[in-house]
């Protein structure tokens, strides 16, 4: 298995976590652990890789990014707010009756969200359809689907993987946020995924693994897609659930938190400052 080295977060990663905590404070709840393993993945995609413009979010030629693990949405909201797809003040209304940002992202409400997700195991099939569509229309749009490690317990993911391999979708990249901790316990205990890389390879994917918090490694990898012509790519990213908050790191109790108090929120902010 790929060994993760401990990555120190830089200012931008800390700032994006601040935004996510702003959402968490607004809703007094949220999947913090699931979001914080994702921040660097989304940061690199939205900062450097994706051809998406918040001023023209429906441009047909855009790249498509689907957060299939919809419960990690606080990370996505953080990036979308930062890129001005919607005002940052929406984060204060996370999960509110009249807010647009729910506990799982909805495409009809949030500019920049491609598909409504939350029920696990849907995103890769939708990505297959979008990737086929781009091929038929001779567009260069690329499709990125981000999945959780618990999520890929779902059989529908492997149906979609078979299909992506069959159609040689080299414009499709499957990204696995492999933090090795699902909702109840470690993936190795609940549903062991190893050998994970071999699984994707055997379904016709070209596979790479890097540390999902190492911004430079992520940039290098995502800049060289597809990994192989005529094959879909699978990127297995070794991450830490709750990365950046010591109490949350590797702690299943932080998979989802509700009834979060103001003092807990202040503690989260202070801990982020310590990382600076």
């Amino acid at each position, binding site marked *: 298995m790929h060994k993760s080295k401990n990555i120190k977060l830089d200012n931008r990663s800390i700032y994006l976590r601040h935004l996510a905590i702003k959402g968490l404070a607004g809703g007094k709840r949220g999947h913090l652990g699931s979001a914080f393993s994702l921040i660097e993945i989304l940061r690199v995609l939205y900062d450097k890789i994706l051809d998406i413009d918040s001023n023209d979010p429906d441009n*047909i030629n855009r790249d498509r990014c689907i957060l299939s693990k919809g419960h990690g949405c606080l990370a996505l909201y953080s990036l979308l707010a930062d890129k001005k797809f919607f005002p940052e003040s929406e984060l204060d209304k996370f999960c509110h009756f009249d807010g647009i940002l729910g506990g799982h992202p*909805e*495409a*009809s409400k949030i500019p920049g969200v*491609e*598909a*409504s997700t939350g*029920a696990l*195991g*849907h*995103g*890769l*099939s*939708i*990505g*297959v*359809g*979008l*990737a*086929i*569509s*781009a*091929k*038929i*229309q001779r567009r260069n749009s690329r499709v990125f689907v981000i999945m959780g490690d618990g999520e890929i317990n779902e*059989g*529908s993911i492997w*149906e*979609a993987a*078979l*299909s992506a391999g*069959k159609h040689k979708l080299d414009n499709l990249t499957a990204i696995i946020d492999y933090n090795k901790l699902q909702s109840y316990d470690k993936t190795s205990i609940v549903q062991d995924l190893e050998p994970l890389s071999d699984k994707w390879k055997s379904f016709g994917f070209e596979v790479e693994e890097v540390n999902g918090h190492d911004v430079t490694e992520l940039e290098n990898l995502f800049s060289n897609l597809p990994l192989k012509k005529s094959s879909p790519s699978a990127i297995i990213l070794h991450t830490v659930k709750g990365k950046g908050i010591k109490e949350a790191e590797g702690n299943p109790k932080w998979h989802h938190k509700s009834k979060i108090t103001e003092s807990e929120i202040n503690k989260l902010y202070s801990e982020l400052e310590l990382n600076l």
Partner: protein
Amino acid sequence: MRKTCLDMVYELAKADDRIVFIGSDLGAGTLSEMQKNMPERFFMEGVSEANIIGMAAGLAMDGFIPYVNTISTFITRRCYEQIAIDLCLHNLPVKLIANGGGLVYAPLGPTHLAIEDIAIMRSLPNMNIVSPSDAEEMKRFMNQSKEIKGPVYIRLAKGGDEIVSDPKNGFKFGESILIKDVGEVLIVSSGITTKEAIYASEELSKEGIKAGVLHMHTIKPFDYKSIIKYSQKVKLIVSVEEHIKNNGLGSAIGDVLNDNCYHKMPKLIKLGIPDQFPDKYGTQEDLLKYYSLDSKSIYESVLGFIKSKGLKAA
């Protein structure tokens, strides 16, 4: 009806390059001409219904109009969450061609009998449901199908069904067709039970009983206005459905009567399959008789009511 429906997909695709076909490893040779002439818009995928629905959703998000072809039970039971979320929540124009609606696959047993498909599809927001009576009506529907904005569940009977629809009645999605004028009785049917309803009505007329036949080819959105209108003219409504009695056509009629006709409510008799998995094989006709859904049973239900109430024939 099945062949007509599939042939129409190819015809529609010739005129509109947004139309794609996705099959689920079903029917060797199905649409082979389309496969040959439009390989980019013909997909024969594996036995993977959940993936196919998501894939169709992705194509539809990008402007395509996918027609998905598989067996009714597999497309309703197995991938219900994909239909609910990928298609209905996003309100995407994906057409689900459901082979073997109702009791068509009688010899294959309960794993293949779609007896609750309408109930579960009807409960999804944004879903539309059609159940044409024969191949000719299917053709008229298919010509309008691509214009329907959201997802559509198309319930197919088997091939070679008798033609009972009349081109003069036309076809308008969402509007029922009054095939026979109402008297004291109205029989409401859909799919191939409309044929049984017509025969029952003809037999009843020999007894001097005028029984109208309202063909509800569109089950969702439900043509409640026609039910309200005719309910004020009749003493009995009989619903006939190749489906369990729960939450199908009869239940939809009952809801309309309950919500709108409390001041003058006709009796409603729901003919359908009881709340149990079928325990017999045989043919579709055998099971229609077994569940009292054939024309003779409809005739007897109406006659029994008329006699019990001492109503005079028209």
